[in-house]
């Protein structure tokens, strides 16, 4: 199944906004997650959501920054899977 990156981004932003209790409009896809206040716990919560929503388990992937640093890079990674 090929997923549209923009749609994935939208879902990830909604979920991250819920995890961080912030307005989803404040989350820009190109902004590094650590600058948004995401820590290891909230990041793992996002990864659990990704497994439930997209059936992709990313925890064992090494979590390299180039694939996980922003919502955009994360959405691209999920779309490619």
């Amino acid at each position, binding site marked *: 199944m090929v997923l549209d990156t923009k749609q994935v981004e939208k879902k990830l932003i909604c979920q991250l906004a819920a995890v*961080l*209790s*912030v307005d989803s409009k404040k989350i820009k896809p190109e902004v590094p*997650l*650590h600058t948004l*206040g*995401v*820590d*290891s*716990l909230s*990041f*793992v*919560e996002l*990864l*659990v959501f990704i*497994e439930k929503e997209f059936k992709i388990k990313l*925890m*064992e992937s*090494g*979590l*390299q*920054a180039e694939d*996980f*640093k922003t919502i955009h890079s994360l959405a691209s990674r999920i779309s490619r899977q």
Partner: protein
Amino acid sequence: MKRYLTGIDWIVNTLDYTAKAQSGIGNHSQIILELKNPLEPKALAEALNSFIQKFPLLNGFPSRAINLCPYWKAPLVKKALPVRVHTVKLNVDSSYLLPLAAQVNAAFQNKREHLVFTLIETGKITFLGMAFDHRILDAKGAEAFLYLFQNYYQNKEPLRISYACPPHLNNWMEKFLAGRQINRFLLSLAKEPPRILPCDPLNEPCKFKVIHLNPGQTERLTGIAYERAGYLMFMPYALARSIQIMHGIFQEKNISGSTYLIPVPIDTRAKEEERKETLFNHFSFFLFKISADKVNDLGGLLTEIKNQMYAQVKNKLPEAIVNASFLLRIASLPLVNFFLKLISKKHFASFYFTCLNNAHQQNKFMQEEVRNIFHLPRTPKPPGVGIFFNRFDNKLNITLSYFDDLLNDQQVNQITKNLEALE
């Protein structure tokens, strides 16, 4: 005024009860502000007293309601107890930690006192310590409390703090199911008793070593953590390295057992509520069980920690701990203490670990610049030893908290050296 206590509050009250039964000193901690310039002690005491009048619960104590629910009772008095502020003058070369450690190791004067301040002047730098009772504030709450003080001091703004907490006497099925989940989880942990350092409950006082990393060192260490453990995985990396460091001590002391058990507190406040939910305890735990024979392989250890963390988030274990803990409130503190000892066979933890991230960035205290904020928690016994990370303004602080009977000077130096070498 009353505020019902949650199950987590009741567990913290039990830790306080146990600590007092052992040594007469409760479950205390201390938050330290490093300030650029001296504060005037009289002005400080006046400002603190004016602020503390807004918090009648700060003079409270635990009680039990007619519905059997424990609550924190604020006495009906017109004026709050005046806050004690100790002033200590030190030579530049003297250790600022000694008077601060003395304060966190001292009992409060009576059951209504839960905060004491220590102002240390070295002529070059100023430290302000707030020793606090863990029953009324957790670590993040203590940071938020001082942040609110500053807001009040600067703007005289009304304080928006939520005291409300329902008695939680509903959704019993949810609580019982959570209790079953936690019971099964604890039974799986209890199959092999974890390694703990033998300690004498009466031996006092708790001692501290603090390592301050500058922004460059902090950035380097964060970069190493992200490279080895993955993006944003600082906490698992810090925990893995702390386990390796403590493993060296356990090996040297020939402690029996094949696993380590480490509870890691996590904050349960929603981000938007952080400054409203200041008082009392708002946390849950991860519980990591690590085989001693896997500790030396850092890659394998990181994978194990991350997998356990992922599984616990997926199974909503931290939420289940909060829900299940409500069931403990029916029991008195001695009974909860007995029950906790029974289910854990007195092996609560091999050591304590926390990693507090960028909680409340407070650049000023009164009119003075804040250079750093760190914590000195008095680690409950057992395990009597803990490693605590916190960040302030892109600077990492690492505190080792321990009792003399657990670690000798050489072992303390070994741990401190290894923690410094993380960077």
